[in-house]
């Protein structure tokens, strides 16, 4: 039995999504998604660009409202919470945005200190210690006086990770943490995600379309395509899937259920009309 299965029945999942439906401008993005995110694991949610991975994270964080279905985090229905309770829940979730989303008018230290200053009454000396520890964990203690504009993309994501960790959350949501990174900083981030998860007893949700890197650290993988979960399991199980949608995505085949061509009339017809 693999780790994710072994944990099984006993503890309820941290995030439980049932029959999630969501559409944007009349176009369905999710159409009945069921998904469980077990505690203490790295769960990856994969799918081609534009399938709604970022949207899913925003639904989990309560920034968007589903048309139907429910999202429960730690036993509480996110979209039934009042603002105060929702904010209290969010303090226990960290989210790493694709862009880092650092506050551009604050330096690295102040960015990491920000949630502490907002939500705790710790004295300055304690804040300083905590921030330095978090920065040490992502290897950027020496960069604490740099401004966000002076950071590379990988460094910005690590700072954002330190900030997301500042309040010692129970869960971190990563939006495409590896996209657009050079091999070195990709390796750094991959190891960091795994290490933070195991060292801090976190639950990590990793949204990504980078197949290799994600498969290398995820305990459990969901593949989403066309608004539905099309595969679920460990990396090996998903890789071995014979569903055409999963195979196309994992092996990078240009044509398949996700068509290479954007819907269009036949080429001949288009060309003739142009003449």
């Amino acid at each position: 039995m693999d780790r994710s299965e072994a944990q099984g029945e006993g503890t309820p999942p941290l995030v439980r999504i049932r029959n999630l439906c969501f559409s944007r401008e009349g176009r369905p993005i999710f159409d009945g998604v069921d998904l469980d995110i077990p505690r203490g694991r790295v769960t990856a949610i994969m799918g081609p660009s534009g399938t709604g991975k970022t949207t899913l994270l925003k639904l989990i964080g309560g920034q968007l409202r589903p048309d139907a279905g429910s999202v429960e985090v730690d036993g509480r229905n996110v979209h039934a919470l009042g603002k105060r309770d929702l904010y209290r829940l969010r303090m226990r979730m960290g989210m790493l945005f694709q862009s880092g989303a650092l506050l551009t008018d604050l330096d690295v230290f102040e960015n990491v200190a920000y949630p502490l200053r907002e939500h705790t009454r710790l004295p300055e000396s304690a804040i300083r210690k905590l921030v330095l520890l978090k920065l040490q964990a992502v290897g950027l203690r020496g960069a604490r006086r740099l401004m966000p504009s002076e950071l590379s993309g990988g460094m910005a994501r690590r700072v954002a990770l330190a900030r997301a960790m500042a309040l010692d959350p129970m869960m971190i949501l990563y939006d495409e943490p590896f996209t657009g990174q050079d091999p070195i900083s990709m390796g750094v981030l991959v190891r960091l995600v795994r290490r933070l998860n195991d060292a801090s007893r976190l639950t990590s949700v990793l949204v990504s379309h980078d197949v290799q890197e994600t498969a290398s650290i995820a305990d459990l993988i969901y593949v989403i395509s066309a608004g539905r979960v099309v595969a679920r399991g460990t990396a090996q199980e998903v890789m071995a899937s014979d569903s055409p949608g999963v195979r196309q995505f994992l092996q990078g085949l240009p044509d398949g259920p996700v068509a290479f061509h954007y819907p269009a009339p036949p080429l001949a017809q288009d060309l003739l009309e142009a003449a």
Partner: protein
Amino acid sequence: MLDALAHLGRAGIGAIRRLGRGHLLAASMLLGSGEVLRRPGLLVTQLHSVGVLSLVIVGVSGLFVGMVLGLQGYHVLSQFGSAQSLGVVVAASLVRELGPVVAALLFAGRAGSALTAEIGLMKATEQLSGLEMMAVDPIRRILVPRLYAGFLAMPVLAALFSAVGVLGGWFVGVGLLGVDDGAFWSQMQAKIDFHEDVVNGVVKSLVFGFVCTWIALFQGYDAVPTSAGVGRATTRTVVHSSLAVLGLDFVLTALMFGD
């Protein structure tokens, strides 16, 4: 024909929706006003960037407008042999109208556009979403201090505009055109009424300050989060604020001096 009608209808609905979102935002900002008392530091920072950094442009413009008023006023008044009343004319036009209105127009161009660009870019770079996910309400934390900064800075900027303008008028009238110094000031003192002129001017600039800042913040907050979207929002801020100031000025003037 039908297409044009449908298009018109869609544009109308879009505009009304935007108006609705704008008022909802105003309501949430007013409900979140407590933040200003809880964190006065935020307000001070914003007063600096919204108010202090607009001082130079407002002061210089006030000087020129006052000098023009001195010239024009002298030219007209001397035809009726009442050039000695120049002080009253200059001060009344500035305090009642030009101070609040021109300062507000300058404010919209200088501070309003900057506010829209700042908020719009914070939205485009996901900083606002990031705050929400850190359980920090961006409306209270980012927008409210800016709203109050604009509201409080505007009367001061308008007062500065008027004061510098009076000096400009004095320089031209008394210094260059030979109006009697004593008459210039004593007539001004006698004829400018505190309630009628000064208080009404301050009320106007408080209204303009609120409206201009609200428009600027809303345009940024509601901007399409791309570089083109933020650019369009910035333009809209200046256009809408200017129209709102001029329109409201008429309404307020009618209410204050109409009878």
